[in-house]
C-alpha cells in the first residue's frame, strides 16, 4: 500500500480527507463518526490513483459504495484495501469484492433515515417544497462531485448535443438537474448523505435519493451496495417485474 485514505482534523472544527503517505501524516488520522464526505469518491480519481494502492479507513457507507462500484465494473478485486471495524471494534482488512460483500451482509442493515415528514405530504405540497429548495440551488454540482456513483466521464448535464439539462440555474433548470440525477441514482444510491452535506445551500438532496431508493426496494426488492453482481432494476428486464404501480 502506498497511501492510507481517511479523515484528519480540518480547519475551524471541520474534518478533511487525509491522503497519508508518511508516518507523520498517518499520525493525523482520526476515526470520524459523522464523515462530511464519502471517501469512496476518491477511489476513481486519477490524481489519487497515481499515488499507488490505497488503504481506506472504511465506514459501512464506504463499503456499500465500493460494492456498488464493483457491481458496476468500476472497482476491481483487490484494487484497494479497506480497513473496517467489526461489531467488537476489531480492525478487519477487506480487499476482494466477495470479502467486502460478506462483511456488509453480516453487518446490521442500516434503516433509511426518516425524511423530515416531507414524504407524508401530498404531491402539490412536495412539489412546492422542492421548488422552494431549488430556488436556492446555485448549480455548483457539489452534489455530483461528492457522490461516488457520479463517476461518468461526461455527465448528462455536460452534454449539449442535445442539451438534456439546462445550464442556467433557474428554478426549473435546477429541478430538471436534480430529478435527472435522482433518476440516474435510483437503485444505485447507498444513502451516505454526502450530497446533502456537500450542498452549500443546505438543500436536503438526500431525501430525493432516499425516496427513490425506498421505491426501488419496495417495487424491485433491490438495495444498492449489497450485491457483487449488477441486477439493476432500471436496466434489467425480469418477466416477474410487477406492473401494478403503473396506473
Amino acid at each position, binding site marked *: 500500500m502506498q497511501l492510507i485514505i481517511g479523515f484528519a482534523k*480540518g*480547519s*475551524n472544527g*471541520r*474534518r*478533511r*480527507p487525509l*491522503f497519508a503517505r508518511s508516518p507523520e501524516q498517518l499520525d493525523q488520522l482520526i476515526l470520524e463518526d459523522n464523515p*462530511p*464526505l464519502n471517501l469512496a*469518491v476518491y477511489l476513481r*480519481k*486519477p*490524481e*489519487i490513483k497515481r499515488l499507488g494502492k490505497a488503504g481506506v479507513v472504511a465506514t459501512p457507507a464506504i463499503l456499500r459504495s465500493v460494492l456498488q462500484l464493483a457491481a458496476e465494473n468500476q472497482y476491481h478485486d483487490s484494487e484497494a484495501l479497506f480497513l473496517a471495524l467489526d461489531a467488537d471494534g476489531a480492525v478487519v482488512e477487506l480487499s476482494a469484492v466477495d470479502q467486502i460483500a460478506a462483511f456488509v451482509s453480516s453487518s446490521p442493515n442500516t434503516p433509511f433515515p426518516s425524511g423530515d415528514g416531507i414524504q407524508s405530504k401530498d404531491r402539490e405540497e412536495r412539489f412546492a417544497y422542492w421548488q*422552494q*429548495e431549488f430556488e*436556492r440551488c*446555485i*448549480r*455548483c*454540482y*457539489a452534489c*455530483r*462531485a*461528492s457522490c461516488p456513483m457520479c463517476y461518468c466521464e461526461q455527465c448528462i448535464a*455536460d452534454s449539449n448535443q442535445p442539451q438534456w439539462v*439546462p*445550464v*442556467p*440555474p*433557474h428554478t426549473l433548470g435546477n429541478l430538471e438537474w436534480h430529478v435527472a440525477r435522482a433518476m440516474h441514482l435510483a437503485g444505485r444510491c447507498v444513502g451516505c448523505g*454526502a450530497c446533502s*452535506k*456537500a450542498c*452549500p*445551500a*443546505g*438543500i436536503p438532496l438526500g431525501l430525493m435519493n432516499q425516496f427513490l431508493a425506498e421505491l426501488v426496494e419496495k417495487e424491485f426488492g433491490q438495495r444498492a451496495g449489497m450485491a457483487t453482481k449488477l441486477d439493476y432494476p432500471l436496466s434489467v428486464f425480469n418477466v416477474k417485474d410487477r406492473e401494478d404501480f403503473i396506473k
Partner: protein
Amino acid sequence: MTMIDRKLLKKESVGPLMAVLRDSGRRIIAPQSVGSAPGAWYRELGPEDELDLEHLTTLSPKSAFLPMVEEILRFRNEGKRIVIDDCKIQAQPTVIFGSRPCDTRALHALDAVFLRQPEDMFFREKRAATTVITFSCAAADPDCFCTSVGGGPRDPEGSDLLVTGIGNDCWLVEVWTLKGKQVVELAPHLFQPAGEVETECLVAKVPVRFSLDDVRKHLPVLFNDEEFWREQSLACLGCSSCAFVCPNCSCFDIQDEADLKGGSRLRCWDSCGQKLFTLHASGHNPRGGQSQRWRQRVMHKFSYLPEKEGLIGCVGCGRCSRACPADMNLVERLTAIAEARV
C-alpha cells in the same frame, strides 16, 4: 475616500427606515433566514420580513449586480426573419442593507471586469441604481482573513454608508458618498448627530494570517512546480462551490434557450474549477487536470489580476473555506505558498 458625515441610528429606527426606503421606490436586499436553510440569505426584504444580521451568509450580495441567471438578449422568429427584442436593462433602484466590508470591497473587482470597455450595461445600470449600506463586523470566525488581503472588519472601501455597532442598540452611520447622503436625507428625523463614539465601536479583531507580499512574490516562481499544485489540490472534488460563494468571482457562461417561436440568450455563473470551462470542441483541454484548475484559481486571484488590474481578486471573506465540502481551506493553501521555500 473621504467621509462626508457621521450620524447615529437607533436600532428601533430600522423598521421605519426600511419603510421610507420602500416608499421612495427602492427595493431592499438584506440578509434573512429562508425556510430551513442554514445561515442567512440575501433576499428582497418585504414589510413582514425579518432582518438577520447575526448569521453569516452563504452567498455574497453579488447577485444583486451579477444575477445567477440574466437575460442578455431576446429574439423571436417571424417566419424566416429573426427579430431582436428589447430585454430588461433598466435597473430598479435598490439598497443593499447589510453587506459586509469584504463583500463591498469585492465590488471593485467586479467593476474592473464589467465596467472596462466595452461596458456591460446590465451590470452598469444595476451598479448605478444600487446604494450599498455595509455593516462592520463585530464578530469574525477563524475562516475570516480580510486583514490579510488589505481589508478589515470596518473597511469603508466601496460603501455608501458604513454602519458600526456602538452598543446600547445604537449604530454609528458613516456617510462616505453622495449616494449614502441621499439615503440619510430621505429620513433625516431618524438620524441623530454623532458625538465622540470611536472607543465604543464594536469591531472584531481579525489577525493577519499570512504575508500577501510573499504570496505574490512566490506565485510566479511556483507556477511550474506541478507537484506543489498536485499536493495542494489532492482533496479538491472539482465542484464550483468556492467560485459561486465568492464575492469576487465573476466568470460566466452564455447559453441560449429557445423554442420555435424564439427565446433568450442567458448569462449565468460559471467556474474555472469545472473541467468544461476550457474544453475545446476538438477535445483539447488546456487545463485538463484538477491541479491545473486549482493553480489557475490561485494565480488568477493573487497574481494575474493584481498584475493586470492592480487589485487582489480576494477579499478574505472565508466563504470558500466554509463552503468547500473537502475543506480545502484557502488560508492554509496561501500560507503554504507564502512560506514555500523558492
